[in-house]
């Protein structure tokens, strides 16, 4: 899930200062789950905007704001309200915001900062475990990603800053390499420690990413 959080209100207020009438867009997927852009947050935003003397012409929570075509369709259903507004405020991740901005001519104001791809520990608690590097090493590291969970993304073991098995940048965080080492030991295997891991292939993560199912490697039906 993409974790996102509301921008500082002063920043948002500044970004909206030149507009009087606003249309609001939320997202039914990630932003709803991390309570930054669901029905409830859109409602609260509407109240806050009204308090600040803005008119809200309408609102919609799109099922998945990152889905460009679906976002276009949902916005068409609210064509008049969008047309009446000076700008559209979007409570969705950066992907969602750009789905909207690529679909309409109106000025779009993003209300959230997108922070990371998060696992849900429990409701309201999210942890980054994968950074979408495009060159996955998890099979050798006992299913713990050092690229993401080591603060330096080291590939050949812990840095000199590890203290009592914890990370130098935050003593509350366990050293990823200690965790990898312990889990590999419990599995009776050497895993990543059996070799010197060469420098990472960052060309796999060249921006902007593009992917098409048409050209991808997939298992064929029947597993062949």
């Amino acid at each position, binding site marked *: 899930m993409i974790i996102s959080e509301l921008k500082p209100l002063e920043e948002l207020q500044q970004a909206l200062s030149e507009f009087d009438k606003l249309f609001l867009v939320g997202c039914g997927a990630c932003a709803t789950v991390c309570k930054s852009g669901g029905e409830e947050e859109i409602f609260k935003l509407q109240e806050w905007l009204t308090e600040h003397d803005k008119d809200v012409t309408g609102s919609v929570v799109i099922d998945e704001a990152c889905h460009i075509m679906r976002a276009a369709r949902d916005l068409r259903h609210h064509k008049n309200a969008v047309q009446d507004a000076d700008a559209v405020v979007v409570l969705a991740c950066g992907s969602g915001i750009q789905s909207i901005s690529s679909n309409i001519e109106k000025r779009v104001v993003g209300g959230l900062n997108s922070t990371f791809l998060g696992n849900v520990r429990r409701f309201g608690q999210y942890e980054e475990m994968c950074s979408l590097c495009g060159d996955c090493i998890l099979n050798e590291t006992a299913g713990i990603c050092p690229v993401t969970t080591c*603060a*330096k*993304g*080291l*590939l*050949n*073991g*812990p*840095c*000199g*800053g*590890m*203290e*009592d*098995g914890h990370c*130098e*940048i935050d003593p509350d965080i366990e050293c990823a*390499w*200690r965790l990898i*080492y312990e889990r590999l030991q419990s599995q009776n295997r050497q895993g990543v*420690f059996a070799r*010197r*891991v*060469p*420098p*990472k292939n*960052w060309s796999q993560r060249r921006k902007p990413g593009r992917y098409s199912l048409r050209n991808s490697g997939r298992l064929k039906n029947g597993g062949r």
Partner: protein
Amino acid sequence: MSYLSDQLAAGKFVVTAEIAPPKGTNLAPALADVKKFEGITAVNVTDNQGANMRLSSLALAAQLQRTGTETILQLTCRDRNRMALQSDLLGAATFGIENLLLLSGDHSKFGDHPDARPVFDLDSVQLLDMTAGLMAGFDMVGQPLNGVPNFFPGAAVNPAAEPFELIFQKVSKKVDSGARFFQTQSIFDRASLERFMSAMVPLNVPVIAGVLLIRSGKMARFLNDNIPGVQVPESLLDRFDRATDPMAEGIAIARETVSWARELCHGVHLMTLGHEDKIPAILE
């Protein structure tokens, strides 16, 4: 080969110290300070130490090398990608710099530019591997070099860190990747140094033990709270608290560590942080 490598090869007990480049372009104080180092085999030139932005370690090391000081150029992966690291190493070679201390580097979070994007395109093992490649005449993608550098690459280790086996597997990797000497994090405990040195025997790579001059209990506690990988034990904190002259106590503690190193290691690396005048007393 470098003077440092010759001394180590000859079984001489080496003494290294360190100097930090200035924040700014005024090299005069650093060039004057280095003259105060007495009986030193080589001087480490730190690279944005503690993630604080300074003049480049390469520039100061080049100046020192030119004026006849044997340097150990520190190079971290924090601020440069693999291309910049290779470029800087080739550049270093043209200034006659041979000794290297190749490090991952403290996280940017600790320094004066906490908003900077940390690079860590390579880790210290990969940096050592790449250096070995340059010495063999090839860059990281296998292209031949026109003019091949000659280095004496070193690496860092914290011998007291736990779990020891985890630390040591990285030490082994560093040796496999061409580390020819180690400089350690500050040593405060003889037992952990002994454990480390016995594990090092089969690897047959010289170890230069880190000795930090602590001036007071307050400084020790500051180090514990703020410097990654430095943990001054309670027993030493007690000694500082009881001491009437904390600086003298600090020198005494450093001298004891030097005596362990004379017994167990191949040299000492003195970190005196502006009190270079105390070096003779520490080495007594």
